[in-house]
């Protein structure tokens, strides 16, 4: 049965490039296995529908709505203005502001695509106006967008937590330090590139302007602290925190900033349901495929084969990193995650690797995959926003890739970077 499933997986991977929707191919691959293995097909609707029957996963649509509300309420402008006032005076200042803006935005949004398409539109327009070329603007936008799903809230981490049976709250909190490290690594890279490419710089706008932009962005800046604080004082589960966060965002948009009215809500919700449908179609069919992998004993076979090579956790992590980086180039992140979790996680746990650290490594790898060609969702969206060809943007993003990989190496070899904060805040 293992060989059968491996063959099906191979065929599935090749047909992916013919362009059918990922969910349909995952569903068909699952069906093919069930039929050939003699398992009744009624398992299909059961696995698929029950994948959505999960309270933790419910946080996903709520956070998607929150991101949509935030993007509509003009918050992206306020955040970017503030970031510009803080770091705009450096050489390559708007690149730096782009990173700082992404960090703040990441505290309210859980998706790299939302960052690239929402905040990215504002950032790229401002950078072009200031004389940056479109590649430079697009590259830093795409690279910094990957911070979004590392700093909580995070869509991929919700899905990871549910699929790998790891605490979503612990994953969220574990992402804070790596997310900030990514920002630092990117800022250092911008620093060295800006000197070499003689990027423009701004005069410092003065403390008055800094204060004014801070006040304008205040409610957006404190949002992450409320969210994280509520979740980690043990008051709310991530799902409940998400619902409260949506209320916060709605109050902000409807009454404080008044950028939209009640009449805009149906469209916002409809767009949210659409995105939920796209995400859930992947989650549901990948759950089916994951079930097939388990029935076919692929995890055991793979684990046995790997542990025969070495039982050193660091060697295993190294192999996982390389595998995920390569797969990330060719696959969409959520789908890759859901298919690989049942294969890779059991062995990691058996080798004594911390489940939270492993989750962070997993998610960061696949987020890096969103900005690598040939299949990179964030790169694709950013190329459209910036109006540059995909290939040229991919090349311009390359230096930042190294910065992100440096952070990946750090969290791989040094578990405390990801495990210290969750232990500190959750083990009382």
């Amino acid at each position, binding site marked *: 049965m293992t060989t059968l499933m491996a063959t099906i997986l191979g065929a599935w991977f090749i047909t*992916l490039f013919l362009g059918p929707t990922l969910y349909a191919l995952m569903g068909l691959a699952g069906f093919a296995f069930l039929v050939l293995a003699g398992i009744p*097909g009624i398992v299909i609707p059961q696995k698929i529908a029950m994948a959505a*029957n999960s309270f933790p996963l419910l946080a996903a649509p709520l956070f998607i709505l929150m991101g949509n509300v935030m993007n509509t309420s003009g918050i992206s402008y306020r955040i970017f203005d503030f970031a510009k006032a803080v770091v705009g005076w450096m050489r390559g200042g708007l690149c730096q502001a782009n990173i700082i803006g992404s960090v703040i935005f990441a505290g309210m949004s859980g998706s790299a695509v939302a960052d690239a398409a929402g905040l990215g539109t504002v950032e790229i327009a401002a950078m072009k106006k200031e004389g940056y070329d479109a590649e430079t603007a697009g590259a830093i936008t795409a690279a910094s967008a990957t911070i979004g799903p590392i700093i909580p809230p995070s869509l991929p981490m919700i899905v990871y937590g549910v699929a790998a049976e790891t605490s979503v709250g612990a994953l969220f909190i574990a992402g804070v330090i790596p997310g900030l490290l990514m920002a630092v690594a990117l800022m250092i890279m911008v620093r060295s590139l800006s000197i070499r490419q003689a990027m423009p710089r701004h005069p410092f706008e003065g403390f008055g302007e800094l204060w004014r932009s801070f006040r304008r962005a205040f409610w957006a800046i404190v949002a992450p602290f409320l969210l994280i604080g509520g979740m980690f004082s043990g008051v709310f589960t991530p799902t409940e925190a998400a619902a409260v966060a949506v209320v916060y965002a709605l109050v902000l948009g409807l009454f404080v900033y008044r950028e939209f009215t009640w009449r805009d809500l149906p469209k916002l919700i409809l767009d949210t*349901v659409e995105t939920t449908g796209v995400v*859930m179609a992947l989650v549901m069919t990948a759950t089916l495929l994951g079930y097939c992998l388990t029935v076919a004993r692929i995890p055991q076979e793979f684990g046995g084969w790997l542990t025969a090579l070495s039982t050193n956790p660091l060697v295993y992590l190294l192999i996982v990193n390389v595998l995920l980086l390569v797969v990330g180039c060719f696959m969409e992140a959520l789908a890759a995650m859901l298919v690989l979790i049942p294969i890779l996680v059991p062995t990691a746990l058996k080798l004594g690797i911390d489940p939270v650290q492993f989750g962070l490594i997993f998610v960061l790898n696949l987020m890096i995959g969103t900005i690598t060609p040939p299949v990179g969702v964030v790169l694709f969206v950013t190329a459209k926003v910036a109006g540059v060809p995909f290939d040229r943007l991919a090349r311009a993003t390359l230096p930042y890739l190294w910065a992100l990989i440096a952070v990946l190496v750090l969290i791989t070899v040094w578990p405390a970077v990801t495990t210290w904060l969750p232990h500190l805040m959750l083990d009382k």
Partner: protein
Amino acid sequence: MPLLARAAARVVDALAIATFAGMFACVLAQVVLRYAFDRPLVWSDELARYLFVWCAFLGWIIAARRRSHLAISVLADRSGTRGRALFAIVASAAAFAFAVLLLGYGIQITARNLDIDTVALFFSFGVVYAIVPLAAFAVAVYAVVDAIAAWQQLRASEPP
């Protein structure tokens, strides 16, 4: 026919908004009652989950209509009009095949669950599963529509 399609789309949209709002209200009610009044609801968690199942499938339909489901389009993007139409036909064939499977098995599982009770709610589990064949049917229809459009494009771009 277009009138019927538009009407069906409006029903789906309305249901989508209603299930999402219901789900959101359930979670909020749970927060408020548990923390403010210390009286947790027994059914809010369960209802929220079932509404989410519906919401996910309704979103699936909407995404099929707006053609926003994720696909790897590297090859299609690099080919001409004819190539792209061919890729689109393959894509709709896959979507159609899976939708038909889901329709058949979806009806079976709904029928089997009609007399199985939910934990704390008044309806049977069959109601939760009923959205599977409904969504599958809608997606199958959109797949056929897409295939016809791609076919026409292929015919139109045929060299004389």
